[in-house]
């Protein structure tokens, strides 16, 4: 039975041509209103942040700064505490990424290329961790981290940031490995390639885009992670996002705005670079079986 035949659409009357034209105008107006609302709701706050980062001050309720300045940028870039946070962030996030790759890429390969008992359980377990309310998971981790003497340590911070990378680093490469046609592997084997050669020369190069997307997402997940790092790392390890918490409360708003712009640069640049692969990769990962 066709879908069209099975669909019932009761309760309407065919509109007149006048009603149709009113509807068309109404839809156009609606689109314009929606567009303006979206710009105001989504884009304007980010634009306001950038204006703040270059403003000397505001004379409330003026919408324009009294004057523009780069002095906040000099202050932020000369602040040793903030620089320490930058160094911590750019050091810890790559470490998290490396550990995540060591743990997850072999699993992604196994999931993508082999059947093994409990494969679906593994996939669902990895997914499930993202379905947990994150903050309660971090709170629940505290006794374990105390037991292992990891509270207030850099290893503890790495562990807590790793949680947010597991899904990306397992699912997206697993999709990439699974999508490689078996015929290619068989052709390589027929040509005399060993299993290791097939992996290094066929599978890995073909899966590189998926791994790259997963790596970018995992890096950003670690780089931007704030709440778990705050619980586990503070006050010893204040990464850039964690530092934002105190900046919001204790510093002039322009100072925090500059820091926010600096902090968002890596995310924006990396995500723009991989945006096409990102949407394709995550979409495919959502359908991995």
């Amino acid at each position: 039975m066709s879908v069209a035949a099975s669909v019932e659409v009761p309760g309407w009357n065919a509109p007149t041509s006048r009603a149709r034209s009113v509807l068309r105008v109404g839809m156009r107006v609606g689109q314009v209103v929606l567009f303006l609302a979206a710009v105001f709701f989504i884009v304007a706050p980010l634009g306001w942040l950038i204006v703040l980062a270059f403003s000397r001050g505001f004379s409330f309720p003026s919408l324009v700064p009294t004057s523009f300045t780069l002095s906040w940028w000099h202050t932020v870039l000369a602040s040793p505490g903030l620089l320490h946070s930058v160094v911590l962030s750019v050091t810890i996030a790559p470490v998290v990424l490396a550990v995540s790759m060591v743990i997850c890429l072999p699993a992604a390969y196994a999931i993508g290329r082999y059947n093994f008992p409990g494969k679906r359980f593994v996939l669902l377990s990895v997914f499930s961790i993202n379905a947990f309310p994150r903050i309660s998971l971090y709170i629940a981790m505290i006794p374990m981290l105390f037991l292992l003497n990891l509270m207030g340590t850099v290893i503890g911070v790495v562990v807590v940031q790793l949680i947010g990378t597991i899904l990306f680093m397992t699912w997206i490469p697993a999709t990439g490995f699974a999508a490689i046609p078996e015929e290619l592997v068989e052709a390589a084997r027929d040509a005399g390639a060993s299993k290791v050669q097939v992996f290094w020369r066929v599978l890995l190069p073909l899966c590189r885009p998926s791994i790259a997307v997963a790596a970018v997402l995992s890096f950003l997940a670690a780089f931007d992670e704030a709440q778990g790092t705050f619980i586990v790392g503070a006050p010893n390890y204040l990464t850039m996002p964690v530092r934002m918490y105190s900046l919001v409360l204790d510093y002039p708003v322009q100072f925090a705005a500059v820091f926010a712009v600096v902090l968002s640069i890596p995310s924006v640049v990396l995500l723009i670079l991989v945006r096409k692969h990102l949407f394709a990769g995550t979409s495919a990962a959502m359908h991995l079986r």
Partner: protein
Amino acid sequence: MSETSVSTEVAEAVVGGAGAPGAPAPRARRSRRSAEGGSRGGLAGLLGYLPVAFLLVFGGIPIVFSLLLMFGHLGGPNAAISELGQGEIPAHGIGTLGAITQLFENASYRQDIFATVMVFVVTAAVVLAIAALLTFWHRLRPSKPLAVLQFLAVIPLFIPVVIASFSLWTFWGDRGFTNSLAQLAGWSNGLIFSGRIQGVILAETWVSLPFAVLLLRAGVASLGDSSLDAGRDAGARPFTIARRIMLPQLRRECTVVFCFTAVGALGSFTVPYIVGPSSPVMLGVDAVNTYTAYNQPQQAAVIGFTIFVLAALIGCVYALGSRSRRVGRG
């Protein structure tokens, strides 16, 4: 319903099962063939379980420890944290409900729970409504403005949550853009959302919108033209087609969007910490404050458990919402 089973249910919907939207069929066939071709147990299984082992050690087992702590078992694995904590209520026998009753007898804690429930329910409903409006409308009447709108809705994905929260806090603050605009327009009451629960809802909506739009966009793309054309041929208006044809077919996707947005808002800390009021606070902020500021890990564990229970309730909503049988897609 346990939290794990809830997650599994939600996961199954997104993993694919019978109804995942837009699954690339030829790709999936290749995947299955390649996986079957290399069917092996031992080493592949070991490698496959590596992330699960990590999550078990730092996710599963800690939840058990936390439950023990909540019921007053301060020794064993909880000894280290208990030595440093304050206001603990030790178990006598199999356990105590002391910490739980202590918190629930506190009117402020009950207000926090109410505020949290209100935030995640309203946020999930608003996000679902906006995402459905954008994606359904674009499917029925494709246009450039709507395509741009969908692009705008995905922008928050590119912004770290802490930056988004700060940005929204300044924008809606007492000296922010919206209030300045209101004052200039002669509205003496002003337009301030920062430091208010409404601000938390707006900010949660801001950060949750991309996932919802992406998922529903995939869903509407997978709808067959035939069913929509049948509605059009019968003279149905777009709203009627959306309500009577599209919505029933996308019920599972809508449920996933609602539940995931709700769980995300429920477990959030950064948005309510920066944008929200000092009282009532959302449970995530409450849990962190209880642990870091008041040094009460047992009470923090109770709050964490409350969040888990609320998440399980959201899972029940998912289970109910996804029961409907999907009609075929052309």
